[in-house]
């Protein structure tokens, strides 16, 4: 029966929507009848998701002849020099956000397996001072088998003296980070005889440290060969002028070896990357070897079908044209892969399109769908005020604007109470909301960041009345107009008011 169905959907008719459906049905039938795909699918999900979430580099990354491949190859050469021959090296990897700098460094580190070494990863955005960076280096060296007893003494010394404190008599193995970054660093690096590779993510942020002491010391150690075991300093940055940020004494110690990484620049390369990201990983599972082979064949065929699908192509094109950002591609791919189940192991192109739509940067606009009506009324009032060239407002001002509109429109006294007698027709009755309800709605809008405070925080803290705290509206006219059109539960008068400005 299965073979009949497969014959009924020849490959040549795959562009036909009906035939695609038929293929999907045949796949599902296969699942049900022949195989339990849970094990092969689990392998696929684990491997691909780990790559997509950045937990590990894919084996074989960078062997595709691209610019990144060249970078990885060069970087591997540099690292080999340090690890195998005890050289001191420094290199800077430059590339935009999401182009794969970290991936390139990881791939290069993974490609130096011949001898044991200690990789140390530091992040400029996390280790914001030299002291933090040195402590993190100590932690990582210790975690990888280095002996850093002197660092414990160092920690004590720093705690006692403070960062800038004078250290008088140093006991043996005691160093003062505040006084001598170089000494501290040398002690650190001497803690293990193994080669050390220091990876500095966000290299430009390290250049912002005081006197660039850490960079100076690291590069000085690397350049002068002051460490026998071998030392490589690898920086990654997205700033193309990162080297210019270095002080002269630091720059002169840098080897000026700069490697570039970029996103795929051509459509073909982008497609190749996408195809490779979805390819079934190499897995050795003897227990499920037969199922694995079968699933792999079907998965590869499914990926081929995806690349023939116009919807999938549209997703890839939009990603390529707008971002060409590899993490963005991975984020889009991760959702259908993660949602796959043994019953629906082959996500169709539609799911990739949905995933792309969900990952686009969203505006605040969608928040308007869930706002209570008084809050919508205040947003409209704020826009009415801004139409008169007043772009900041107070609660009192929007309240007055709403109050005036309510007087004009509803022809009802704007007493500060809800008309309880009209509860049988609540839609009309609650169109005039009392002041405290509007105040609650105003607070909701501030909480959602749709009304942004302009008053300084100190003014509010020192007792400025919140009715008179100035705010501005974060929404554009078009967004409000769209939201008003979308909301079906708006009273007609409010709907018209939402359309009445120019």
């Amino acid at each position, binding site marked *: 029966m299965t073979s009949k169905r497969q014959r009924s959907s020849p490959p040549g008719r795959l562009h036909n929507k009906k035939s695609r459906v038929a293929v999907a049905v045949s796949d599902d039938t296969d699942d049900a009848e022949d195989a339990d795909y849970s094990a092969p699918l689990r392998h696929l999900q684990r491997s691909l998701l780990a790559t997509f*979430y950045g937990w590990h580099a894919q084996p074989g990354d960078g062997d595709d002849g691209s610019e990144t491949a060249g970078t990885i190859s060069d970087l591997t050469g540099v690292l080999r020099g340090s690890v195998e021959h005890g050289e001191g090296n420094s290199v800077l990897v430059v590339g935009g956000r999401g182009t794969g700098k970290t991936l390139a460094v990881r791939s290069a580190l993974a490609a130096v397996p011949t001898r044991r070494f200690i990789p140390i990863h530091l992040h400029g955005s996390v280790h914001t001072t030299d002291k933090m960076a040195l*402590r993190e280096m100590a932690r990582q060296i210790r*975690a990888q088998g280095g002996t850093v007893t002197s660092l414990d003494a160092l920690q004590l010394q720093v705690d006692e003296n403070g960062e800038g404190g004078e250290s008088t008599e140093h006991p043996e193995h005691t160093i003062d980070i505040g006084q001598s970054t170089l000494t501290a660093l040398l002690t650190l690096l001497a803690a293990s005889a193994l080669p050390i590779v220091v990876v500095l993510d966000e290299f430009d942020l390290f250049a912002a440290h005081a006197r660039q002491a850490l960079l100076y010391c690291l590069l000085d150690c690397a350049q002068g060969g002051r460490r026998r075991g071998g030392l490589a300093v690898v920086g990654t940055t997205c700033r193309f002028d990162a080297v210019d940020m270095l002080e002269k004494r630091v720059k002169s110690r840098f080897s000026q070896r700069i490697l570039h990484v970029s996103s795929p620049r051509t459509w073909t390369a982008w497609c190749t990357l996408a195809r490779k990201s979805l390819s079934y990983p190499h897995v050795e599972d003897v227990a499920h070897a037969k199922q694995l082979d079968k699933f792999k064949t079907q998965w590869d065929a499914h990926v081929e079908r995806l690349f023939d699908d116009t919807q999938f192509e549209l997703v890839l094109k939009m990603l390529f044209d707008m971002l060409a950002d590899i993490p963005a591609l991975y984020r889009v791919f991760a959702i259908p892969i993660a949602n796959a189940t043994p019953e629906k192991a082959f996500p169709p192109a539609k799911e990739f399109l949905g995933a792309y739509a969900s990952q686009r940067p969203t505006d605040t606009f969608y928040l308007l769908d869930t706002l209570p009506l008084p809050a919508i009324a205040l947003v409209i009032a704020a826009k009415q005020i801004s139409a008169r060239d007043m772009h900041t407002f107070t609660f009192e*001002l929007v309240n007055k604007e709403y109050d005036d509109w309510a007087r004009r429109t509803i022809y009802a006294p704007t007493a500060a109470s809800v008309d*309880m007698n009209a509860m049988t027709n609540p839609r009309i009755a609650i169109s005039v909301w009392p002041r*405290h309800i509007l105040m609650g709605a105003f607070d909701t809008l501030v909480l*959602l960041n749709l009304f942004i405070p302009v008053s300084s925080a100190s003014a509010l803290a020192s007792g400025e009345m919140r009715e008179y705290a100035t705010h501005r509206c974060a929404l554009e006219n078009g967004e409000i107009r769209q939201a008003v059109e979308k909301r079906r539960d708006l009273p007609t008068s409010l709907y018209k008011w939402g359309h009445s400005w120019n």
Partner: protein
Amino acid sequence: MDFTLDFLKQALPRNTPFVDSNEAYNARLVVERVLSAFGVDGDSTNPIERLIDGLSTLNGGDSSKRFIVISDAHRLKSYGNLLIALQRLPEIINSPLTLILTSNQPYTTLRPTNGLSPDPIVVNIPSVTHKDILDYLILNRPVHIGENLHNSYLALCNFIMSSTLALNTQPKELLKITHKSWPTFIHPWKELSARPSMRDNDHLTLTFSKISKGVIQSINSSLPDHMDLLQASLPTDLTRCAQLLLIASYLASYNPPKKDIQMLSISSDKRAKRYRPRRRDIGLSKQNKKPAQNLLGPKNFSFDRWLHIYGSLLHFVSESTLTTYSLNNLKNDSRVFTDNELGQVDVLQNIAHLSRIKMVQRTCPSDRLDGMTFKCAIGYHVASNLAKSFGVKLHEFLWDIS
């Protein structure tokens, strides 16, 4: 959002830290909550170092099933580099760890500048539909409601939804209101064991709608009732002198200084003195109209101006409520009375007291003694009520009333 968190609590491992950033209001507290949930501790005093140090020592268990959930994550923006460190944790500690951030604001509002951390996968939680809310209300009906009263409960749910949904879309709050109003709703139905017909249910709804003021009030009670707050903060425990000073501060903050003479001088021709052009007389179009000061907030005023307005007010007060004003007995000569009042140490003491309790806000540095400036910190309703107690009408002294 509450439902999402409830779901996560059921679905994730028991040792998963759920951090509410309203409760954990700084980086140190967030890190403490995370580390204590995992049962580890870090060495450093720096929160980020401590987090990394603590989580690096994590071992045992299924490493792929480690999660951290942080609600109201938009607050993390003010916690320094904590968000970046959290988002880069898997890289730093070299172990898979899933960070789940929930917020009612889009990720763009908390994204670190310059793309310092990788963007997360965004999952938009759709708003709860009316049907879902109704289903939720029905599912969580009070246990003592029998099957025979199911349709009546449904009628109540429909009524509550139709009358309150415009103001409140919180299912849990609506459930509370429904539960609270059920006894009142069913009260006219005496035979609780019988099944009401459709017409009976309509009758119950109609009866309830007439007495549902309490329900609406219960909704409103969850919102800050400004009028109640004002009533509560009415400064009745102040001295009469301080109360009058408060009125004077209100006038000083909301009247233009140039109009003080016109508004507060004693003249035989009161009508001429009190003439104020109406806003439509000014001749400005609505497009260019400057809003009234009572919509924009109080302005700063000088100490001397405050005292002079206070002195002028004493004339009006002494004319109308002289008998109630019992500060001293110098009532015969209003000039002597006023001058003496202005010079009294009591007045200065009251000013210091008002400034201390923040009813009048000092807007200059505390070490400046010359040219001190203040700002009124009470609203129109408080000032108006105070003026009434002195037998004067506040709006007669205000230049611009909108």
